């Protein structure tokens, strides 16, 4: 079985690809339109530099070769949502060619990545005519085309999930934008392939492909022949159906787009510094920290910030301690934890105390859990000893309580004394909260 995907991703620019209309805002139909994205006679396109830059970032992420010069093409087809009845896209010189994406250990070859404009949206009405909203017309898209290297519907889904995580990370795409990802899926069980067009979302891609596997297998088992065709995926019935034979031949009759000129993209690409992709980071974790591939992916896919914290902790303590802590107590409490610089530093100093032998591993784990969850039971157990020390200090300086009522700064005397006495066993946040709590109790 061979599966190849054409993945369309909307690029997160603020203005459209060839005009300055905003990409986000008013949801009312036809509010974000201008003569360019409506295809009015006399209007001319001009390219958004950010769209080109994001395309180049993705091309680099996919390890594509980037041609010296690129230009756009007109792809001509007639449809009511296509304002000019041609789409400005890239035919001869896409921003990236011949890349590769590592899905774990398996390379998925990338044929090309090119940029193009999104058409508008179309709605059918009961009387048979249509209603068109051009707000989407001209939103920049990157289309990533893979070779048929994917070998199952499940793998296709895994590939998409992983690819999207990397894309999001590389170009700062909003995490909830799965719906805006559309796929054309090519699949062949036997020799002939079918294309399922315009499938939205990861789940639907897997469903559409699974349906095709079953359908094509049945036909082949019965001694039939697969017909090469374009099919549609019906999201509600979860089946693919044959697209009616085109009455009009699809001959796009590409020409070079003469309104925009050419772009020296190899030079532009050399000036772009991509962030390390999650995939690259996983490989580095294996090499630098001797992690298993699985453990590395586990940490990174949980949260890129967790991976970053691991590196900080490893630098502050040592690799083995960091691995142990992060894969244990830190990972298990990560969900629901809102990491801040302060809380992460507290965890690091706690682990340091453990390393120095000042607290036991059980105590260390408990205190880390307390910092991360703020769970009362945990925190109370942790702070029992601290409460005793603070109580003793208050007993020795009873005047503080009256002073505190007048000015809260009076607590600083006790905080300073306790810090000195405990020498870093407790985080400053813990001490501050314990002192305040106990003073308030005695007021």
């Amino acid at each position: 079985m061979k599966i190849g995907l054409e993945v369309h991703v909307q690029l997160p620019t603020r203005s459209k690809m060839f005009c300055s209309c905003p990409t986000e805002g008013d949801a009312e139909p036809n509010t974000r339109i201008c003569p360019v994205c409506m295809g009015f006679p006399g209007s001319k396109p001009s390219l958004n530099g950010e769209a080109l830059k994001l395309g180049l970032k993705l091309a680099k992420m996919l390890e594509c070769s980037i041609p010296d010069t690129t230009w756009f093409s007109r792809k001509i087809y007639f449809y009511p949502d296509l304002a000019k009845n041609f789409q400005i896209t890239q035919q001869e010189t896409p921003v990236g060619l011949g890349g590769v994406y590592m899905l774990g250990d398996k390379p998925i070859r990338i044929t090309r990545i090119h940029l193009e404009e999104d058409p508008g949206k179309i709605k059918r009405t009961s009387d048979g005519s249509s209603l068109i909203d051009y707000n989407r017309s001209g939103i920049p898209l990157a289309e990533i085309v893979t070779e048929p290297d994917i070998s199952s519907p499940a793998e296709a889904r895994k590939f998409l999930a992983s690819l999207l995580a990397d894309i999001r990370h590389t170009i700062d795409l909003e995490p909830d934008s799965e719906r805006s990802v559309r796929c054309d899926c090519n699949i062949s069980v036997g020799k002939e392939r079918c294309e399922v067009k315009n499938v939205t979302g990861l789940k639907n891609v897997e469903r559409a492909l699974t349906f095709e596997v079953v359908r094509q297998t049945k036909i082949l088992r019965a001694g039939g022949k697969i017909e090469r065709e374009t099919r549609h995926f019906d999201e509600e019935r979860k089946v693919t159906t044959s697209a009616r034979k085109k009455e009009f031949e699809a001959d796009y009759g590409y020409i070079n787009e003469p309104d925009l000129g050419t772009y020296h993209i190899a030079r532009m690409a050399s000036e772009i510094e991509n962030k390390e992709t999650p995939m690259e980071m996983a490989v580095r974790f294996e090499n630098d920290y001797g992690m298993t591939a699985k453990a590395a992916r586990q940490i990174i896919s949980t949260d890129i910030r967790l991976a970053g914290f691991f590196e900080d902790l490893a630098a502050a303590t040592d690799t083995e301690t960091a691995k142990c802590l992060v894969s244990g107590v830190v990972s298990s409490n990560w969900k629901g934890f809102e990491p801040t610089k302060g809380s992460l530093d507290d965890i690091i100093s706690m682990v340091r105390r453990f390393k120095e032998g000042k607290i036991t591993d059980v105590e260390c784990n408990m205190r880390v859990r307390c910092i991360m969850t703020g769970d009362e039971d945990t925190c109370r157990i942790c702070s029992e000893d601290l409460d005793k020390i603070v109580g003793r200090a208050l007993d020795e300086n009873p005047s503080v309580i009256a002073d505190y009522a007048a000015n809260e700064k009076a607590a600083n005397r006790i905080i300073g004394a306790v810090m000195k006495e405990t020498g870093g066993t407790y985080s400053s946040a813990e001490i501050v909260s314990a002192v305040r709590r106990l003073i308030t109790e005695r007021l």
Partner: protein
Amino acid sequence: MDRETVIRVARSAHLELTEEEIELYRRDLEEILDYFRVLDDAPSSDDLLVNPVEVTDVLRSDEPHMEIPADTLLEDVNTYERYVRGPRVQ
């Protein structure tokens, strides 16, 4: 240039031709394409493939901006509840 090609090309360009038009354009295109044959042995080069002068690296900054209000643009458009009315798609 035969009748069928004229019809096929016209169809892809969304033009429906009368019998007279088919014959007219068939004859004209045959004559014109015959004349275009001189291009077969013309010299050629790949210097500029888009414009006759160099137009390079002209980019716009990513600043949203609407010069003409959308409502003004829709004034002469056949609309229904702000949607542009179009023909049947299914």
